[in-house]
């Protein structure tokens, strides 16, 4: 481990594979703007990994910002709160951007953005209280996965956890919301880190930043130094910017040199990885008690007239957001929810923004969006770039013949679908699609 600056670490161990993607962080210097209150919001009852919520309001109810409108008694679930004040106009099926239909609550705005009177800062002194408070806040991983944060923080007693890693890598191209959060809200991030460290008892905290964000690094360093962290437990780490550096397992490897085995979680090797924006949210929530009702997103891409970083109420219609960004300057051919490497191509603009969405990208037709599909030439690039040491070309072959046994034997389920293989493939093969099919084949096989 070489130390360039005191208190600043460089990666302990570099992950294998990965690809060099063009960063395209066009919106990096654009401060987060607040979008005007939309006419109506649609709040799906499933904006997280886990059990869906059940609506707790009915048509005609008056709701205020931060009022809980959906909850469940299941543990792996995050409650849903109203993001605007107004009247519930519909409770029923809504279609998400990915085409899945779930229960949802539609709220018509009264334009006042009245805060729910029941909101008060929670009192948190121990782990149980922290987890309960975080659950009440409705927080899910804001980096894109949407896993309920209280589940992550509720570490079983038998697991020996020593390291908290704050993920500020943001390795997906285009997206700059975490970057803006670091610049605009660095104080809150540090506060969040302190809270998590003191309550959950981490021995060390590593704030990991990719080396293409020197500005963030400088700001974080200044604040971290000023806070005069006595036991020097909070450290900054620069990582080389190479996709998918921000993936949880890669992060744990770079920060600690530990490898998370297939099917295990970072907590199995003593780590918890938190997104920066989620960390800052925890600090804010403990101060104000205002649950997760809005989030920042990057709106960018060659078809967007005025790319922006904006803060929108959750449940805002995508079309409203695009209109706020000047609409389309040319006919879009592909609209993506999230980043271009792992994001979801959506089929229309009539869908709500959910908690875990961090970007909307709209592209004109471009060469790199559609590469001609040719036969596999066995060049092995997919094998070289796979951060999980898998063999994507073999997965494709077995996936096409639906051989569940073979697929299991080559560990398809270890794949995190980062897309490096398909990115690197000179023959333009849709490898991630085959990998998803492969996982489906295995699910069907084990369901028999």
């Amino acid at each position, binding site marked *: 481990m070489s130390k360039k600056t005191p208190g600043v670490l460089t990666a302990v161990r570099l992950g*294998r594979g990965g*690809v060099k993607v*063009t960063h395209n962080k066009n919106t990096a210097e654009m401060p987060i703007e607040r979008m005007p209150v939309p006419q109506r919001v649609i709040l799906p009852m499933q904006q997280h990994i886990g059990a869906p919520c059940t609506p707790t309001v009915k048509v005609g109810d008056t709701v205020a910002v931060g009022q809980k409108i959906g909850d469940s008694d299941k543990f792996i679930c995050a409650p849903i709160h109203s993001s605007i004040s107004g009247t519930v106009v519909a409770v029923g099926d809504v279609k998400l951007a990915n085409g899945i239909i779930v229960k949802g609550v539609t709220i018509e705005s009264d334009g006042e953005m009245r805060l729910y009177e029941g909101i008060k800062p929670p009192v948190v002194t121990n782990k149980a209280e922290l987890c309960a408070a975080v659950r009440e806040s409705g927080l899910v991983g804001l980096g894109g996965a949407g896993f309920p944060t209280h589940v992550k923080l509720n570490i079983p007693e038998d697991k020996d956890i020593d390291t908290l890693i704050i993920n500020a890598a943001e390795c997906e*191209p285009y997206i700059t919301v975490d970057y803006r959060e670091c610049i605009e809200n660095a104080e809150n991030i540090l506060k969040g880190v302190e809270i998590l460290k003191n309550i959950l008892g981490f021995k060390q905290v590593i704030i990991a930043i990719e080396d293409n964000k020197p500005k963030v690094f400088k700001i974080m360093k200044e604040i971290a130094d000023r806070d005069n962290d006595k036991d020097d437990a909070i450290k900054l780490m620069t990582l080389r910017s190479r996709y998918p550096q921000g993936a949880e*397992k890669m992060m744990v490897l770079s920060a600690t040199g530990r490898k*998370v*085995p*297939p099917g*295990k979680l970072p907590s199995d090797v003593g780590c918890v990885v938190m997104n920066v924006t989620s960390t800052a949210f925890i600090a804010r929530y403990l101060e104000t008690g205002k649950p997760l009702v809005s989030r920042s997103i990057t709106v960018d891409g060659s078809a967007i007239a005025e790319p922006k970083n904006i803060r929108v109420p959750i449940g805002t219609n995508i079309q409203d957001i695009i209109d706020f960004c000047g609409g*389309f300057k040319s006919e*879009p*051919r*592909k*609209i*993506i929810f999230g980043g*271009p*490497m*792992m*994001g*979801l*191509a*959506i*089929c*229309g*603009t009539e869908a709500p923004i959910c908690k875990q969405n961090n970007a909307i*990208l709209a*592209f004109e037709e471009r*060469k*790199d*969006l559609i*590469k*001609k599909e*040719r*036969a596999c*030439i*066995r*060049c*092995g*690039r997919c*094998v070289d770039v796979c*951060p*999980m*040491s898998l*063999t994507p*070309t*073999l997965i494709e072959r077995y996936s096409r013949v639906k051989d569940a046994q073979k697929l299991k034997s*080559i*560990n398809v389920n*270890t794949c995190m*679908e980062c*897309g490096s293989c*398909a*990115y*690197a*493939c*000179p*023959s*333009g093969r*849709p490898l991630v*699609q085959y990998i998803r099919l492969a996982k489906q084949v295995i699910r069907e096989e084990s369901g028999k």
Partner: protein
Amino acid sequence: MAKRLTVSASPHVRSNETTTGIMLDVILALVPALVMSAIYFGTRALVLTAVTVASCVLSEFVCRKVMKRDNTLGDLSAVVTGIILAFNLPATLPLWMAAIGGIIAIVVVKQMFGGIGQNFVNPAMTARIILMVSFPTAMANWVVSGSDAWSADAITAATPMATLAGAQGGNIAAVSDSLPSIAEMLLGRHGGSMGEVCSIALICGGFYLLLRKVISPIIPFFFIGTVAVFMFFAGGGNIEFVIYQLLGGGLMLGAFFMATDYATSPITKKGKIIFAIGCGLITSVIRIYGSLPEGVSFSIILMNILVPHIENLTLSKPFGFVKEKKQKKEVEA
């Protein structure tokens, strides 16, 4: 409002590397050696190359048509096969034989097994061996470079490999009169296949491919390295003998351009090492103990056949994989 949005699986951006681009790089890397062979063997070298390339391209076109599959000429792999095949032929070979070689490479070896990426042996190499077996005299009609390959009475000569085969136990001095100098070996002023003579041009091309990351250094390094080590011991520590062995015959062409063929070499790193060492060993054994003076083509073909097995045995373990035994130990601890 957008009417037709493309919905596809992620990732939505792709690298700008394409199959065609890779093949173009290989063609570029072969140009220096082609130029040198034109200098040594005259225009006939170029005509021979044109014939094999045309034969390969035409075969591929007709084959895909007959098989009712889409046209794959655009990937340029047939052109690469054509050039490499020409490099493996003596400059004097009758043109119709060269054309047959192209047909064998594309129709029998490549397309009948499913086209690009599916052939289990190297097309150009197999075509060369079939030609060698079918037309042994014409395929061994080596002219000394610098003499006009068009003329019927071009000066023919034994290749350095044939001469070296006479040097028992690395005793170069015994045959030194009939051997070209090391400088001549490097530049290519000696008998041999059209494209294999100029080692320096091939090495330059090979380094270009390494630089462009078209090939990984593993195969050339271990292939050439194994031959060097073997020859060092076989020649009783005679470094000169080792140098002649490395620069003579088709080793440079084979190690940089043919053993590295994607379709017929393992995709795993460990597999590549095993494959390359195997190639080196077989080449050396044939050169020293076999009745043939040269063994690069046979070694590559033989190792090609083993590739699926090598690959199966060397598949990497997934990230963070722990062996069951170790896991149990950890649990106990």
